[in-house]
C-alpha cells in the first residue's frame, strides 16, 4: 500500500515562493496563470503488515502531527491500495 501526502499553505498565509514562481511563469511569456501556490509532496510506502483501516488512521495522524504544521499548513492524504 502506498500513500501520498500533499502539504500546502493555508488560505490567507502569504506564499512568497508561489508569487515568485508565478512571476517567473509570466516573465517566461505565459499568460495562462492567474495564481500559483506551492507546497510539499510526500510519497510514503506503508509497512506491509498493517491493516488498511489502521494504516489510514495512523497515516492521517502522521500527516496532521508531523508532516504539516496546523498553524500554517493544510494537508491532503491519498491512499492507493
Amino acid at each position, binding site marked *: 500500500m502506498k500513500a501520498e501526502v500533499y502539504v500546502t499553505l493555508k488560505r490567507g498565509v502569504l506564499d512568497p515562493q508561489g508569487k515568485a514562481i508565478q512571476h517567473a511563469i509570466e516573465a517566461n511569456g505565459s499568460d495562462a496563470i492567474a495564481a500559483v501556490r506551492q507546497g510539499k509532496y510526500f510519497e510514503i510506502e506503508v509497512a506491509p503488515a498493517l491493516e488498511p483501516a489502521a494504516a489510514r488512521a495512523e497515516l492521517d495522524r502522521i500527516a496532521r502531527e*508531523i508532516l504539516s504544521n496546523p498553524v500554517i499548513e493544510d494537508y491532503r492524504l491519498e491512499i492507493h491500495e
Partner: protein
Amino acid sequence: MKFGVVVFPGSNCDHDAYHVISKVIGQPVDFIWHRDSNLDGFDCIVLPGGFSYGDYLRTGAIASMSPVMRSVVGFANHGGIVIGICNGFQILCESGLLPGALLRNASLAFACRHVNLRVERTDTVYTRDYERGQVLSIPIAHGDGNYFCDDETLARLEGEGQVLFRYVDSKGDPTPESNPNGSRNNIAGIVNDRGNVLGMMPHPERASEEALGSADGRGVFTSLAAALAELAKAS
C-alpha cells in the same frame, strides 16, 4: 544556578551561546545532548541557533520531536525559564510552547545583517537590564524568520504585551523598510503568556562584545543571570 545549552545535530550557535554565558557574563553553563531528557539542575534552558536535523521537514520541526524537547516542554510548563534564539525560536513554535510559526522570509533570501530592535517591555526576566523603547543593534541570520500567526493570536500577543522585541528603524519606528523578513507587526521576539519562554529571531549572543561591533545583546544574558540569581535567593 546553571544555564543549559541544548545541542541538536545541526545546531551551530551552541558554542556561541556557551561562550557568552561562560566567558562574557561568567555564569555556570553546560551542554545538553538532544538525546538526554534529564534537565535536573538547570535553571535556564537555551535553544541555540542552527539548522537542527538539517531543518529538512520544516524549520525546527524534527527537533521539536526529540527526547530533550519533551523534557523542555515539561520544564517550561513548571515555570522553568527557556530562551530560543533563531532556530530555537522555530523549535519553540513547532513544539507549541509559543504561538505562531516562522515562514520563509518575504524576500525569499537568507538575510545576515545588523538590524535595529526596540525593547517593548522591561518587566521580564529577559529584558530587565534594558530601558523601555531602547533601540538595540543586533544581527539576524536566517532564511525563515517571517513571524506569522492568525489575527486573533496577534491581537492577544499585542494586547497582553507578549511582544518583547520589534524590528524598527534607527529612530525606533516599526516601518515596512525596517522589517527584514515580512513578520507580522514587525515582530522579532515574543514571550508566552506566563513570561517564562522567549523566542527571538535576532542573535543577542552575536552582539555581546564590543569587539564584534555591538554589545547591545548582552543585556538579555545579564537580565537572565540577575533574574535567576533572585529566584535562587527566594527559594
